[in-house]
């Protein structure tokens, strides 16, 4: 089962390098293993998913759009099920699905642009409804939240009747029949278009951090005290960018205890860079943050996922920072690229938080009384939207009131309801 490179410490880099040299099915399996072992996590999941889907589009056999959508959906669900804690995978799959639909409808429009204008409105009334409904009734394994996306979906599909009718009639419906007939000629063109599109998504992922960082000096002002909770790469870049223009102080907080005895210096690289720009940094070795928040001007952290309600999935403890900031009326700034916006509501599991390995906190050599303890080490937190002031995306700062339009711009209605945790499609 394990791919050949598993014998040498497998990593995403190796996987990406070997993508072309091995069957794409092998690559999918390899990524699934990496995801399950959490050797690929966070932002890398998005990159990895895009790479794999690119292979699927480029190398799998498909003859029409429906087949291609099915392939992508099935591979997407396999990946998503391998890492249910990483909704970003689902986001990328949805983006690719939307891309395929767009390209396909463009193709078709090119094929018969005659009369499509008048025809599509009437045509779409019938086929629009089936596709969105298809995913909704399918049994859902993990997500209890399908109801809410369903709600959104209905309103979207109403909207769609007028505005996005052309894209609605592609999948597995009667409307796609003429399309399928036209396929053989356009499969090649479609393949190229979709591959280009996926590459664009990959570029977008790559440049997102820089784009987000470009808003740094607007948000951070001279002399401020900024609390960065477990700074991710995105936050690091943001702070460093701000440091080139401003003098301020950064408090770096983390849930992992810092032991001064070990000589381990958390965030040493980031601190060195910031210090070299004249920015003061302080590592807070603290569990609670209320003690420091009165000194802090704003709280910044990166989101793993931003849900459609504006809630966030974050590293555990960030909620403490957000909550403390709220009480002292300090703004909470969340950094998250658009590809992290998830057109779902948080699942109950996400709200409760994911449990991690507690063994670093408790010595299991401690005897029966320790073994009898119920220990919970929560590693992710859910932050309700009310605690967040500003979302800074690669498209600029947003408030939660406008998240819906971002979602509408990036995902197709048909794919929003599509639950990646369903069985193979």
């Amino acid at each position, binding site marked *: 089962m394990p791919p050949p490179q598993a014998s040498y410490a497998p990593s995403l880099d190796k996987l990406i390098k070997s993508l072309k040299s091995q069957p794409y099915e092998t690559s999918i399996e390899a990524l699934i293993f990496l995801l399950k072992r959490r050797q690929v996590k966070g932002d890398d999941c998005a990159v990895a998913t895009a790479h794999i889907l690119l292979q699927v589009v480029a190398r799998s056999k498909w003859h029409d759009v429906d087949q291609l959508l099915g392939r992508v959906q099935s591979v997407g669900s396999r990946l998503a099920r391998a890492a249910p804690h990483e909704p970003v995978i689902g986001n990328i799959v949805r983006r690719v699905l939307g891309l395929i639909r767009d390209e396909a409808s463009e193709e078709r429009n090119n094929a018969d642009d005659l009369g499509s204008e008048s025809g599509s409105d009437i045509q779409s009334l019938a086929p629009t409804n089936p596709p969105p409904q298809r995913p909704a009734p399918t049994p859902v394994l993990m997500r209890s939240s399908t109801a809410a996306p369903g709600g959104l979906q209905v309103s979207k599909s109403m909207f769609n009747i007028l505005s996005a009718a052309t894209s609605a009639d592609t999948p597995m419906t009667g409307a796609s029949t003429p399309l399928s007939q036209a396929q053989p000629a356009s499969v090649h063109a479609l393949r190229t278009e979709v591959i280009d599109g996926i590459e664009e998504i990959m570029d977008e992922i790559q440049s997102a951090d820089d784009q987000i960082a470009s808003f740094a000096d607007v948000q951070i002002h001279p002399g401020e005290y900024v609390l960065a909770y477990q700074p991710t790469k995105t936050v690091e870049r943001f702070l460093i960018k701000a440091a080139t223009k401003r003098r301020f102080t950064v408090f770096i907080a983390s849930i992992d205890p810092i032991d*001064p005895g070990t000589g381990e210096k958390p965030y040493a690289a980031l601190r060195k860079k910031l210090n070299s720009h004249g920015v003061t940094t302080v590592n807070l*070795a*603290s569990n609670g943050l209320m*003690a420091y928040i*009165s000194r802090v001007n704003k709280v910044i952290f990166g989101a793993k996922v931003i849900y459609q309600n504006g809630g966030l999935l974050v590293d555990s403890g960030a909620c403490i920072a957000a*909550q403390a900031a709220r009480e002292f009326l300090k703004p909470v700034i969340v950094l998250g690229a658009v590809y992290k916006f998830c057109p779902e509501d948080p699942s109950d599991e996400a709200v409760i938080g994911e449990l991690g390995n507690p063994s670093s906190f408790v010595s299991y050599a401690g005897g029966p009384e320790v073994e009898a*303890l119920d220990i919970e*080490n929560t590693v992710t*937190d859910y932050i309700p939207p009310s605690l967040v002031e500003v979302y800074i995306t690669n498209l600029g700062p947003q408030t939660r009131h406008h998240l819906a339009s971002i979602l509408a711009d990036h995902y197709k209605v048909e794919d929003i309801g599509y639950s990646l945790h369903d069985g193979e499609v």
Partner: protein
Amino acid sequence: MATESNGAPAGAPVPKETKTSAPAPAEGPVAGPAAAATNPEKLTPAQLKAKAKAEKAARRQKVIANKEAVAAAAPAKEAGKGKGKQDGQPAQSKQHRGSMSGRRPSIGGLVEKEKDVRSGIPECFSHVPMAKRVPLSQAHKDVDPAVLVAGQQMATFAIKDSISRLEATLLAFKKVIESYETPKGNSLSRHLVPHVLNPQIEHLTECRPMCFAMGNAIRLLKTKINSFDINDPEDETKEELLEWIDTMINERIKLAEYLIARNAAGLIEEGEKVLTYGRHRLVEKTLLKAKEIGKTFDVTIIDDPYEGGGQTLAKTLRQAGINVLYSPNLGGLRPKVAGATNVILGGEAIFANGSLNAASGTADVAMAGQNAGAKVTVLCETINFDRERVSVDALTYNEIDPERNTAECFRLLYDNTQDKYISGVVTEFESGGGNSPAQAILALLRTREDPQIA
């Protein structure tokens, strides 16, 4: 001023008392000779103290200079004297550093090392005091061995919470009083505090900023001593003082603990989900008491990985047969608090405005608890109440963890929970099921005896 010098939870009572009831040593070099003139026997100690004061002030100035011109230790600027005097007592670490280089020039290397103790503290926290290990050889010669021991225990955090520190202080003072003999021509009520007790208090403060309970108890003790007549026989006075200290320990510590545990245990309802933070003596006693009187309830313990006391508490409760869910840090606090009905927290001190000074992280838990609709109960002995000070944020009265005092790794020991997050405070004055809102502490204290605290 006083707070800066003595440290957050410590300060004011001491310097204040020093100024009012013990003019001679506190007034510095000018007052020293004056005292010496009237009392030939005390000439030397008084002068020494005055000299030490001057030195301290000078050293303090030096440190300030250090800070400004990194490590360029300008030797003893006498100009700093006045300010040092006004502060009552320079910040403990600086003061100590000063006396070291002054008294033992031979150990220069060590001095250099010691100098860095506070230098790593980030600028924005530089006003916060920090505990400091004072080598026994550096202690003032008048410090009693029992106090030296207590000081060491406090500086190393072997004795950590406010009540244990109070008890250790009182027991050490008992030893001091037992071995005390009034010099000829003096009376106990006039001589004991300025010449014997004050050096002890200074030493303890130097080791670690005093907690509010110690401040309160010392104020009470000084009032007690001052209440004796000059002509009272020494033996009887000593006897009465020792008894008074015993009563203090019994009533304000032992009985208070029992009563609070009993009262708070009565507040736990059958089948409740109790949540607590870290390990506080009173909370532990309360939960065990509640179990003992036959209540069934679940406990969630949120721990502080830097203290780890919650784990000990978890084991203790588990052995008592209580269902325990243990979380090693504040991660996932919201969902955990949402499942709790009663958040029970222990406090280090409560200020006049009702805000709670407690282990860092308590405020986060209290706030989450209140926001989730749970009742937040704070357990605190009245000796910990501070009627004079008011604190609105955690940077007013706090302490730096001496283990983690640099920009690379910085930690404050306490935080400040505003009264709006506290549903009620259980004290030893309460009886039955009632408890009082945090804002009521002044009224509460005023209605009871103890005009000194209330």
